[in-house]
């Protein structure tokens, strides 16, 4: 075999090896994509359901003052804090996460919780916060529920401890709230329905208890 023939053979082997490698890589990518696509698609859809027309939902005015300080303590931009909904002296507040999404917390005139920046799970159609209190440590005088719904929610209904029900209005940020001062009207359960009327989630709110 001449030197030219050996060189040609080596080139042919190299080409075959390269083609085989490309085909194998493409096949692996195809297999990987078949496994990854449904999960990725679900995650993308879930993330999309928790977006708004602005990066952070809500309005910048009337933000409880402690909310900005709480955001700062959590490593969030205090200037990004917005009020999603307010009722009964409590507000659901939002701030911009470092990843660009929205974080949520509860704030009143004298309190502010830490912010949660996690993407809610697929089973969660709403994110809620609950505040209760009283004028005496032996009794509960009020309960306030504030929350925000994902984009496919059509209706949120609260069930009271006496089995009454009330639909909660979703505002333009999909925020909702409920406040009660009569013990029989305290919330015990939240039911969340899709825009097609299907039940998406039910939340047992537990029993409200005084501190003593």
């Amino acid at each position, binding site marked *: 075999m001449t030197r030219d023939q050996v060189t040609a053979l080596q080139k042919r082997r190299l080409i075959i090896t390269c083609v085989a490698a490309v085909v194998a890589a493409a096949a692996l990518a195809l297999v990987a994509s078949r496994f990854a696509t449904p999960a990725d698609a679900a995650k993308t859809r879930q993330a999309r359901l928790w977006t708004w027309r602005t990066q952070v939902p809500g309005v910048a005015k009337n933000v409880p003052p*402690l909310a900005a300080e709480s955001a700062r*303590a959590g490593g969030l931009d205090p200037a990004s804090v917005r009020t999603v909904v307010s009722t009964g002296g409590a507000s659901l507040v939002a701030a911009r996460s470092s990843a660009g999404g929205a974080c949520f917390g509860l704030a009143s005139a*004298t309190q502010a919780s830490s912010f949660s920046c996690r993407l809610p799970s697929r089973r969660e159609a709403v994110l809620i916060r609950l*505040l209760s*209190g009283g*004028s*005496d440590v032996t009794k509960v005088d009020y309960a306030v529920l504030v929350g925000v719904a994902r984009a496919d929610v059509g209706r949120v209904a609260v069930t009271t401890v006496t089995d009454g029900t009330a639909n909660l209005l979703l505002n333009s940020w999909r925020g909702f709230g409920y406040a009660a001062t009569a013990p029989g009207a305290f919330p015990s359960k939240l039911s969340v329905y899709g825009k097609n009327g299907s039940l998406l989630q039910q939340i047992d709110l*537990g*029993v409200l208890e005084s*501190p003593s």
Partner: protein
Amino acid sequence: VAPTVNSRTLAYWFYQGNIPTSTGARAVHKQNDCCNIDHWIRMSWQVGTHDMNFLNIDYAGNWSSVRAYASDGYDQYLLYNANYWRRGGCQNPVGLSTVWVNCHEGNTP
């Protein structure tokens, strides 16, 4: 499994233990130190358990409870105005199982 906060041994937890307590109390709270308006309660609790409550009580006995959702993590804080609230603490909601809790006045871990 008890909460695992890195510098827990260095922190000032005013209560570390089960709630309900040995006396059956479902809440523990502490009078805040003087003179700063912004005060913090930090609560970490047993991973894998349920939602807990932050608790504030004022001079006249008025109280307020903010639920801390376990789905958001087992180490959370509440910032409060100490001109208004005299005491801060941690509460295990009624009817739920005993939970190991670290209740801390302050926001450092």
